[in-house]
């Protein structure tokens, strides 16, 4: 049942973006972790990074759409909660946007460092726009790595927070992101 974002409820677009991106982010993290240790002769040596890059670019596109969306349509306010929890929740949620932009852009800067484009699922090639910076692939790679670990830590905090609200506080924090009409 499609509905729009209001003061209390998340709309269908935001809910879909939230869960699609959540799955992609977690998949990308583990795919990235996995692919860098593949031996040269492994059958997935080329296909795993190809998938990682394609999904990453796709995630960046979704991130742009979502960022515009939350600027245009104000997302519902947090449910009542103690000040410290509120600050933490907001900080983690806002950080996701910055972290995700940082990770996807730094990721894109690795293979494009010497001017080659990146393929999006073999559909088309995104050209390199920023190249030739001395050791660009290493510096971008360093950021990509560190930011990804910070992100996954925040994902963990975010998940713990959601579960705590659902099972301990018994409020609608999680159910409203699932698009389920809460009890309150």
């Amino acid at each position: 049942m499609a509905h729009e974002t209001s003061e209390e409820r998340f709309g269908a677009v935001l809910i879909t973006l939230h869960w699609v991106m959540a799955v992609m982010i977690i998949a990308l993290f583990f795919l990235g972790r996995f692919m860098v240790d593949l031996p040269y002769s492994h059958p997935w040596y080329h296909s795993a990074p190809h998938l990682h890059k394609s999904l990453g670019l796709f995630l960046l596109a979704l991130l742009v759409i979502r960022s515009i969306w939350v600027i245009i349509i104000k997302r519902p306010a947090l449910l009542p909660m103690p000040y410290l929890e509120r600050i933490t929740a907001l900080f983690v949620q806002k950080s996701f946007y910055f972290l995700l932009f940082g990770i996807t852009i730094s990721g894109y800067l690795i293979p494009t460092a010497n001017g080659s484009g990146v393929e999006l699922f073999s559909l088309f090639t995104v050209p390199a726009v920023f190249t030739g910076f001395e050791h660009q692939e290493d510096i971008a790679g360093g950021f990509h790595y560190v930011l990804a670990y910070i992100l996954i830590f925040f994902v963990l905090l975010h998940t713990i927070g959601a579960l705590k609200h659902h099972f301990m506080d018994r409020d609608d924090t999680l159910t409203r992101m699932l698009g389920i009409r809460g009890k309150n």
Partner: protein
Amino acid sequence: MYRIKQRIILLVLLAVFLIAPLQARAADYVIDSKKAHAFIQFKISHLGFSYVLGRFNHFDGVFSYDEKDPAASHVKVTVDVSSVDTNHAERDKHLRSEKFFDVKKYPKATFVSSSYEVTGDKRALLKGMFTLHGVTRPITIKVRELGAGKDPWGGYRRGFEGSLTLALKDYNINTSLGPAAKEVVLFLSLEGIRQK
């Protein structure tokens, strides 16, 4: 005032000590890596089907060469390993990582010659110690003397080319690239400008 004088004297002394050794090597040559008339290139088999070619973009070195006594020649080259360039950013990143060169830990590769043995017309064997990936081993470079003479800009230049084959395993680089890629062939083309 006295203090300033003291400092000036100190600086002059320091400058003399720093510059003096450079001038003592007056007959020596500096490898012209700045203007890129010097190349350190390599090739390694890709699965036995073809070669990957690459080079090191940043290095510097000096050599001495006396036509009357070539055996007294001496060479020292330092390579910035992180400048490895195979025309593929991800591969270069990979080569710089711990799996291959580990440039954070071993940023420099060096060659210091120990002997120069003329073997024929314009041919020689240059022996010395080569350090890569923290491992120092003796190597022999097959050298061809290419030419020497005045350049059009008032300088004097001398050039050589050389080649050698190294086994990755010898330098403790153990990440497998397949059975065809155990050795790498290096090709050097180095031009030196004589120092006045």
